[in-house]
């Protein structure tokens, strides 16, 4: 029995009480415009206290608050790997491209990864990625070399993305936390499906698919690549034989419908952490819940800004944790 996280989980439980629920989202939905939404959010304590903040600044402040809180509870980044690795992946790709083109980065790095963007940029410029985890370092080295030799930035992206997915799976398995393993498997499998669907539409060759798809337990990536090669119909047929059959119809409808299903199912995967009190699982669940909450608020604000109809906006809203 791990007792290391009892204090942290208790604090997270207290914070969960202030997460936005369905009623709060309905209240935001009923606001006539973006300005009113922002006022409601500020009344709930969102933002940095500066009423002149733009919507993006307000959301960024919330993201920052979440991570400040979580880093106060633990210095261990492992329980948050599925959320941090995509950020690191983005920063590694951006750094490699900046280093290859000898340009200065401008607004391309994302905050909140495991490694500071400046450090990643320095690694890319020195072509020494040894401070990254071995798998990521190897992929970064390979991607950097590929970009310099071929100038193919997509190849660079594919190599890093796949390494990140494999790292999510590995860290999930090694964490000993069932929630991280489940979430990692879900993340990787759905990312594979999306990649296969995009590759199918863009008529990418088999070699591309083999490079891009990360092997996971719930999907046979060879069969997925084979199906994607033979066209969208075959791909959907194959998906029907997998645990992801429910997503098949949504993939047919639209990419955003598939993404909403992916996010909602991921949210269902972490619900079990509400009954966990001794491990880092609830911390991870809280981080996911906050990120999803911020994404949902972003969707509402953007919808209000662009005058999107309520029904269409409602279709895009994600399930909440509470």
């Amino acid at each position: 029995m791990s007792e290391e996280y009892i204090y942290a989980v208790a604090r997270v439980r207290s914070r969960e009480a202030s997460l936005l629920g369905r009623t709060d989202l309905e209240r935001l939905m009923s606001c006539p415009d973006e300005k009113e939404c922002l006022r409601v959010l500020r009344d709930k304590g969102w933002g940095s206290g500066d009423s002149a903040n733009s919507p993006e600044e307000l959301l960024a402040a919330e993201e920052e608050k979440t991570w400040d809180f979580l880093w106060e509870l633990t210095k261990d980044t492992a329980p948050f790997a599925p959320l941090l690795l995509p950020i690191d992946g983005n920063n590694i790709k951006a750094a490699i491209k900046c280093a290859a083109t000898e340009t200065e980065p401008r607004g391309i790095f994302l905050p909140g990864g495991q490694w500071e963007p400046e450090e990643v940029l320095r690694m890319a410029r020195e072509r020494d990625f040894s401070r990254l985890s071995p798998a990521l370092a190897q992929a970064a080295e390979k991607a950097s070399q590929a970009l310099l030799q071929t100038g193919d930035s997509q190849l660079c992206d594919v190599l890093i993305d796949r390494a990140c997915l494999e790292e999510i799976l590995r860290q999930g398995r090694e964490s000993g936390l069932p929630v991280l393993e489940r979430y990692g498997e879900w993340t990787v499998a759905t990312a594979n499906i999306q990649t296969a669907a995009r590759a199918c539409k863009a008529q990418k060759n088999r070699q591309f698919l083999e490079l891009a798809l990360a092997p996971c337990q719930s999907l046979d990536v060879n069969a997925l690549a084979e199906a994607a090669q033979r066209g969208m119909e075959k791909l959907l047929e194959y998906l029907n034989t997998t645990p992801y059959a429910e997503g098949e119809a949504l993939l047919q409808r639209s990419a955003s419908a598939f993404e909403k299903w992916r996010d909602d199912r991921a949210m269902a995967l972490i619900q079990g952490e509400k009954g966990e009190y001794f491990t880092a699982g609830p911390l991870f669940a809280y981080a996911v819940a906050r990120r999803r909450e911020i994404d949902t608020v972003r969707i509402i604000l953007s919808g209000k800004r662009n005058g999107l109809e309520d029904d269409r906006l409602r279709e895009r809203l994600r399930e909440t944790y509470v």
Partner: protein
Amino acid sequence: MDWNTMGIVFALLGAVLATFLAGIGSAVGVGMAGQAAAGVVTEDPSLFGKALVLQLLPGTQGIYGLLIGFITLTQIGILGGDPNISLAKGLLYLAGCLPIAIVGLISAKWQAKTSVASIALLAKKPDQFGKAMILPAMVETYAVLALLVSILSIFSIGGLAI
């Protein structure tokens, strides 16, 4: 070795185990619940009183163990009186102490887990304190039953003609 003189040794071992094991259970339990209570109070200091009650619940087993230990010491003559008791009686005292020693240790740990969960409940719904307190208190039942058996045993052994 004269086994007839070993009665007092086993009887004292019983008293020690009752105090020691039940005390360990409570120390671990109160520690665990205390961490959870500290977490909740960090976020909302007004919950200190309620969280403290929930933290203290796994502490009772240690008190029960101490009580049995004290009664045993009194009965076997360690705290005054005649400490010459037969081997059979010594073993009976040891057996009489075991219910609270073992059940105290295990129930304190499980009660602590329930207390931690109840403190989390309190964090989310402070108005549900009554319900949050009943849940770990249910575990207490079994510690009380063990205490009862230990008390009845210890008080009855003295009167046995063995």
